[in-house]
């Protein structure tokens, strides 16, 4: 598993993919931070941290597929997966190696963006608990998104299909909660609200620590990683 992790991580930085991902994310986050947090603080005295984190989570929904689209789709296209699948590495080991590699790149980008708040802390007194909670939530949602990306990537050998499919699934989980205001059935509304990644995320940005959300994000991550393993198992037996 560690061999796969290492190779995968290296390939992110041998190809421009890793750099592009981190650069574009930091540019987007930096832009959102200057407008929503710093500019608002200067003009109205109120910085809008929760909108900033919303931008962060949506930009990951667009950018994370860049990291995951290749992972299995390309291995399948170039047949290098035969090497992995005939090696002694177990299927879960293979999937986790890829997961942690993508997560490392994502985590590095996210950590770098946290430097913004160090700057903020020097010039003002931000609400530390609220920011910490939001950052934690982003780390958890990121894991779930990467798991979704790996799962979709394992279904196809076309990177583009993998990327677009991943964005679609991620956006579904993000915006499904918005639908609830258009649904009259209370049961369906509860389900939509429950599934929504974003409504739970809002708890964190408004400073509420929500253990149920943490468990939900971890479960989402687990379900899709497990699904990925199953995809390979079922292909082997097909």
């Amino acid at each position, binding site marked *: 598993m560690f061999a796969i992790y290492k190779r995968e991580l290296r390939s992110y930085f*041998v190809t421009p993919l890793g750099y592009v991902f981190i650069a574009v994310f930091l540019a987007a986050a930096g832009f959102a931070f200057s407008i929503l947090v710093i500019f608002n603080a200067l003009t109205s005295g109120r910085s809008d941290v929760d909108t900033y984190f919303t931008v962060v989570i949506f930009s990951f929904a667009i950018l994370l597929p860049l990291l995951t689209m290749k992972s299995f789709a390309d291995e399948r296209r*170039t047949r290098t997966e*035969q*090497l992995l699948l*005939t*090696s*002694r590495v177990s299927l879960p080991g293979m999937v986790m190696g890829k997961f942690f590699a993508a997560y490392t790149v994502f985590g590095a980008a996210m950590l770098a963006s946290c430097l913004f708040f160090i700057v903020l802390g020097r010039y003002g007194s931000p609400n530390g608990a609220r920011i910490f909670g939001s950052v934690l939530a982003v780390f958890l949602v990121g894991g779930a998104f990467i798991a979704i990306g790996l799962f979709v990537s394992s279904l196809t050998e076309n990177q583009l299909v993998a990327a677009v499919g991943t964005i679609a699934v991620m956006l579904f989980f993000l915006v499904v909660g918005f639908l609830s205001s258009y649904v009259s059935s209370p049961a369906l509304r509860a389900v939509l609200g429950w599934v929504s990644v974003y409504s739970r995320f809002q708890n964190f940005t408004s400073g509420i620590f929500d253990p149920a959300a943490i468990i939900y994000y971890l479960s989402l991550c687990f379900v899709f990683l497990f699904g990925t393993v199953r995809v390979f198992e079922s292909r*082997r*037996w097909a």
Partner: protein
Amino acid sequence: MIKATHLTKRYGSFTAVDDISFTVGEGEIVGFLGPNGAGKSTTMNMLTGYVSATAGDIEIDGHDLLTDTAAAKKSIGYLPELPPVYPEMTVGEYLDFVYELKGCTLPRKQHLADVCEVTKTGDSLKRIIKNLSKGYRQRIGIAQALIGDPKTIILDEPTIGLDPRQIIEMRNLIRILGRDHAVILSTHILGEVQSVCDRLLIINRGRLVADEKTEVITTRLSGRLRVRATVAAPEKQLLSAVRAINGVLRADPVAGGEPGAVTLLIESEPGVDIRRPLFRVCAESGWPILALEQPGADLENVFISLTAKDPR
């Protein structure tokens, strides 16, 4: 080393491999021969654990592939049809990766150097695989298969896409490997098995149609002599004259003759060379022989006869 019993693979209603059993021992190079789509790659994919068999058992070096997977896989080196190399890596990085992937415990530096020496890949460890030729990638593919010193080597069409010089090098390499490994190689090139394999498994439409030593199959055919003759003569008279020659088993006209001439395929009894009597007969009647050739007693004939009479 490799023991496959009643191996079957079905994709839905299509049976790709149908009840194949064979064994391959140490120090043996076995050629897996069949037309395209006969089930060669599917069988190899099953042997290496890439796909699972619908039915049947595979034992590698005494380890069952299904229940003792890790130990069985450790004993296999596999070169798939396309060498599984990552184009953005250098050769050295790639071999290092495979070493770690296989969880190899042999002393790294020495082992990788040995593998590179056998496959002659040591001189370009720093080159990026993307920029290497097909033949070179194939050699890296073999190097990859040899890492971890597995007892059995499975090569899926190892010479496909190589130029003639590379093919010769590859065959020499396979012969070297055959000394202390059990090697299975698949191919649809008959000359290849004739030059490197000790034994042949011929597969057609998923079924095993022959499992014999290469020389047994070759001699089985070379016992009979076949001659193809083009003679400028009236067909009926020529046929009766030729059939009257001592030792001729059968003579049949075949298509593709020149105008005004007849082409015959003549089969004679073992040990009888009918070319001289044929000349005499034709000379007496004043029929000029335009062409006379002996189609080689090669595997092509065995292969065609074996695969053509398949019941399906």
